């Protein structure tokens, strides 16, 4: 007969620690208590042995589970397939870059369209101003249709006729420092177009103020194309054939100021001239009948031709 003492209170306390003891999670002091008790308590020693046996069996079973080599290789193959590209494998980053790409394409498209529109607009501005530059070159510069000594104002008014005579005073007043040498109505050879032409001298050069019916030609709309707005008058400018030209438009007329002075100077002169000239032209004091009646072809140099207007 082998009688064992079983102190249920102490055993109960120790057994509550057995799980932590088995997991090596007890404090050193508590571990000592457990060990001391186990030395003297066969029941608890057996209980610990039973728990250890279950744990060891579990470990043995776990170790017996052989990881399939094919699974390892399959995982590695899939990992290499998913090797990230330059975006670092971040899905959010991929989306962000894709979105940025779309934005760039859209903005690029808009910018390109704007750029093409500006280019087209500037070509139209240049082609309209080319009318005035051509008239200036053919009549004033190459044709030299002005006297060295200015014609008297009365004679100029007579040449302009009653419908345009009033414009002489506006031009004289708004061209300080310039002397009006000549004013007449001129026609373009081979073209029905006619124009009112003021030829002035000042600042060491010859300057033309030209007014002609627009006949469908017009400057493009948009701030991007104009050099400035003075009251209700928009000004346009271009450098063509060695000349700087500034232009404006009224209801029915195009107006040009052309010389070889600087662009800034031309815009400044045009900004003075354009508002009163536009007001006078819009007032209806000018009639086409009078223009036609008074028009006379300018003397033209060889190869003179009608300026081509690009309206698209």
């Amino acid at each position, binding site marked *: *007969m*082998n*009688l*064992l*003492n*079983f*102190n*249920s209170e102490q055993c109960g306390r120790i*057994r509550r620690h057995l*799980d*932590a003891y*088995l*997991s090596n*999670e007890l404090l050193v002091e508590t571990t000592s208590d457990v060990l001391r008790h186990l030395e003297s308590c*066969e*029941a608890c020693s*057996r*209980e610990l042995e*039973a*728990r250890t*046996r*279950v*744990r060891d*069996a*579990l*470990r*043995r*079973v*776990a*170790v*017996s*589970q052989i*990881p*399939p080599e094919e*699974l*390892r290789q*399959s*995982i*590695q193959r*899939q*990992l*290499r397939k*998913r*090797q*990230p590209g*330059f975006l*670092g*494998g*971040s899905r*959010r*980053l991929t989306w*962000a870059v894709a979105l940025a790409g779309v934005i760039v394409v859209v903005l690029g498209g808009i910018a390109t369209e704007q750029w093409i529109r500006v280019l087209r607009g500037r070509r139209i501005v240049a082609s309209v101003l080319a009318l005035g530059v051509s008239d200036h070159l053919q009549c004033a510069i190459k044709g030299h249709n002005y006297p060295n000594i200015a014609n008297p104002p009365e004679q100029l008014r007579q040449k302009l006729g009653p419908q345009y005579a009033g414009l002489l005073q506006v031009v004289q007043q708004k061209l300080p420092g310039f002397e009006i040498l000549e004013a007449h109505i001129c026609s373009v050879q081979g073209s029905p177009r006619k124009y009112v032409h003021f030829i002035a001298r000042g600042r060491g050069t010859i300057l033309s103020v030209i007014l002609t019916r627009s006949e469908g030609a017009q400057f493009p709309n948009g701030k991007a194309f104009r050099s400035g707005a003075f009251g209700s008058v928009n000004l346009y400018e271009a450098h063509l054939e060695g000349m700087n030209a500034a232009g404006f438009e009224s209801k029915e007329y195009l107006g040009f100021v052309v010389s070889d002075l600087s662009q800034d100077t031309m815009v400044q002169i045009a900004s003075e001239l354009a508002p009163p000239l536009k007001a006078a032209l819009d007032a209806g004091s000018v009639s086409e009948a009078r223009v036609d009646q008074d028009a006379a072809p300018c003397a033209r140099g060889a190869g003179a031709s009608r300026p081509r207007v690009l309206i698209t």
Partner: protein
Amino acid sequence: MDLFFHPKPRVEDFEAAAMPHFPDLYRTARLLAQDSTEAEDLVQEVYLEAWKSFHRFQTGTNCRAWLFKILHHRLHHFRRRWAKAAKVEALENPEDQDSLIAETPVPQEIRDEDVLQALGRVPIEFREVVLLADVQEFSYKQIAETMQVPLGTVMSRLSRGRKLLRQELAGVAHSFGITPAKDPPRAGESA
């Protein structure tokens, strides 16, 4: 900034850090899952998930614990497929603890197939803690971090998980005619 400028991870680095833990992960997955196919799917998902978030893994930290944490999260997805998962709530009820206090005899001879069968009957929440503690030898603190539960929950689940395994093991062994080891006599009893 981390979103856009994390360094590009290399699969070689990932493999060097993560693949040495493949056997441990597989073994744990195999004992958690119903069969080897489920276990393989689980391990594969763990590695692919880990690779996706490898840029967030800090070199020098515990890669093994990180992988087991992912395993724990993937396990939740798999559990939906495992209809036999038992309810933890009932077993975490203190009233149920009384029935677990009495020590269940452990068979002298414990066969591997008995362990596998018994383990399969232990609810997965307990099984997972038992495997992490007894097989993978994670500390309570590491298990708590992996499963994102309080330390006390780890301790109680481990205690009950071990007892449940022992109960199931005794039941399986008994059904095969294996005699449990006898408990020592209590005070006042003769051996």
